[in-house]
């Protein structure tokens, strides 16, 4: 391919300057922007960690503390002369339990429904699909009060089930599985059927293994969203023994507001696990992601 600028007047220095800039400057700019961007994206995390390790009198007054201390973590996890320790580890376990079970249920229900709605022909299928689309756009907040009343009537109020069951179905996940299963070549499924496999076996042996990458991404999204859920968990559970970390931090107002260091420590405890989960699954991330975003 001929070079575009080659036969223009090379003597003018500003053109040469521009060409140099084009060659190296843009690259430098790209690296600069990338560094700034990554720094901006991670700054709040860095800030949070630094403040949680900061001496109490420097919290929010210095970005980089003059010395590092674990006092905030000790106060938070072990209590002090004036406080009882909050069940933080338990809160962590609660978050893990509630998020894990909810995510699993959401995935299971979505796989089954997604497969049926894309690969099985039955009457009412299209109606159900339309209803799902309607529900996706229907604001969840309008259902908040009555759902709370139903949960109370079912006896699920103030229980783990109260946090998990009303969050057992995710419409977006169903929607994603419908589109994914539609994209699987029907021949593969048909071959299994001819071999005498039941629909459940087809789903378990062929469709689900094929969906590994997409399941990782959908699961990751569901996990992350459930992990930071605030309003529902806040309303449905009142006892510290069952509270999720996120709610525990949100309810540490009043007297605790004067202990910002421990609050930062709590935020670190809240955020680190989700980042670890994310990094573990991130190798599936780019692969599955392209599909999720279609």
């Amino acid at each position, binding site marked *: 391919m001929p070079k575009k600028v080659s036969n223009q007047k090379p003597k003018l220095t500003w053109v040469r300057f521009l060409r140099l800039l084009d060659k190296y400057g843009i690259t430098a700019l790209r690296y600069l922007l990338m560094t700034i961007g990554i720094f901006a994206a991670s700054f709040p995390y860095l800030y949070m960690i630094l403040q949680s390790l900061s001496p109490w009198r420097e919290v929010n007054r210095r970005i980089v503390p003059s010395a590092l201390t674990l006092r905030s973590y000790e106060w938070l996890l072990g209590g002090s002369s004036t406080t009882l320790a909050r069940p933080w580890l338990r809160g962590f376990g609660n978050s893990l339990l509630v998020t894990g079970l909810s995510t699993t249920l959401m995935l299971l229900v979505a796989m089954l429904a997604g497969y049926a709605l894309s690969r099985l022909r039955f009457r009412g299928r299209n109606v*159900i699909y339309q209803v799902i689309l309607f529900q996706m756009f229907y604001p969840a*907040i309008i259902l908040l009060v*009555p759902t709370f009343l139903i949960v109370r009537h079912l006896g699920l109020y103030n229980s783990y089930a109260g946090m998990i069951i009303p969050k057992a179905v995710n419409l977006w996940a169903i929607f994603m599985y419908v589109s994914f299963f539609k994209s699987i070549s029907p021949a593969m499924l048909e071959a299994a059927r001819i071999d005498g496999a039941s629909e459940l076996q087809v789903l378990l042996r062929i469709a689900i293994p094929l969906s590994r990458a997409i399941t990782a991404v959908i699961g990751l999204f569901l996990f992350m969203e459930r992990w*930071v859920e605030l309003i529902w968990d806040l309303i449905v559970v009142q006892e510290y023994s069952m509270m999720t970390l996120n709610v525990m931090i949100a309810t540490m107002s009043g007297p605790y507001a004067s202990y910002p260091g421990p609050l930062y420590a709590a935020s670190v405890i809240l955020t680190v696990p989700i*980042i670890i989960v994310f990094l573990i699954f991130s190798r599936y991330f780019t692969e599955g992601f392209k599909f999720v975003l279609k």
Partner: protein
Amino acid sequence: MSNYNKREEATGWLFVIPYLAFTLIFFVVPFVWGVMLIFYKWNLISPVREFVGFGNLLEALQDRRVWAAAVVPFKIMSMFLPTVLVLSIGIAVLINSFKRMQGLLAVAFFLPYLASGVATALVVKGIVSYTSPVNSAISKVIGYVPDWLGNSFLAVLVISLMIAWRFSGYYALIFLSALQSIPNELYEAAQIDGAGRITSFLRITLPQLYPALYSVMILAVGMMFGIFTEPYMLTGGGPNLATHTWYLEIYYQAFSTMRAGYASSIALYNALAVFAFIGVVRKIMQSWGRALGWED
């Protein structure tokens, strides 16, 4: 009838039963119940509930707090949308310009999406506190400390930026996958026509991003009506209701003043507002899409 295989049909229904049962209990019933609550004055615990007809709906129409909540999504949107679109398209183009490690870079920019609103709010609260290092630096330059959460404009800006920070990386991934599906021939053809970097970005890249832009717009606009955590933790809806969102108002009425029926009425208006506005955005986006030559 003959189109349906009996066994297949039974299996199909069996597979959607979990979803249907859930929808019945946690969508249909609350939906009907919520609509019924609208007509009552009730505090959730009293044995007495008083029928008030359309009273709640009418009262909400004259309520300053409700009107504030109706306006807030648009105020936040006016700052959030431009910011997030520039940032996320920028990030996508930037990541795309690197030949290697795209996955790793995408992961780095995706990190903010993982942050809990509660934790982010805590960080922001610290950063905007009067004696924070950031504020001391600013006051050295401009001579005073901006009242970040006390000034209506700045409070909306802070909340918009927090949300933009969280979502830019996520939306960037959507744009990135769209960028990578643009056929190279288009650029080559443009280059032959003598188009520069900027021209080809405006003439080719942007129009080709339309489908991604469409999804981002719908996602972003829908989210504007459901903001809760950031203002709940930072401003409580202030100053002077400048950041008083729909969810804050519904939460306040339902669980603070315990007016269940009134809260349901406001929720109904919220639903109407979302549907109406998303409808408008879809119309606009679609007609723009047709102008660009995209089919619906």
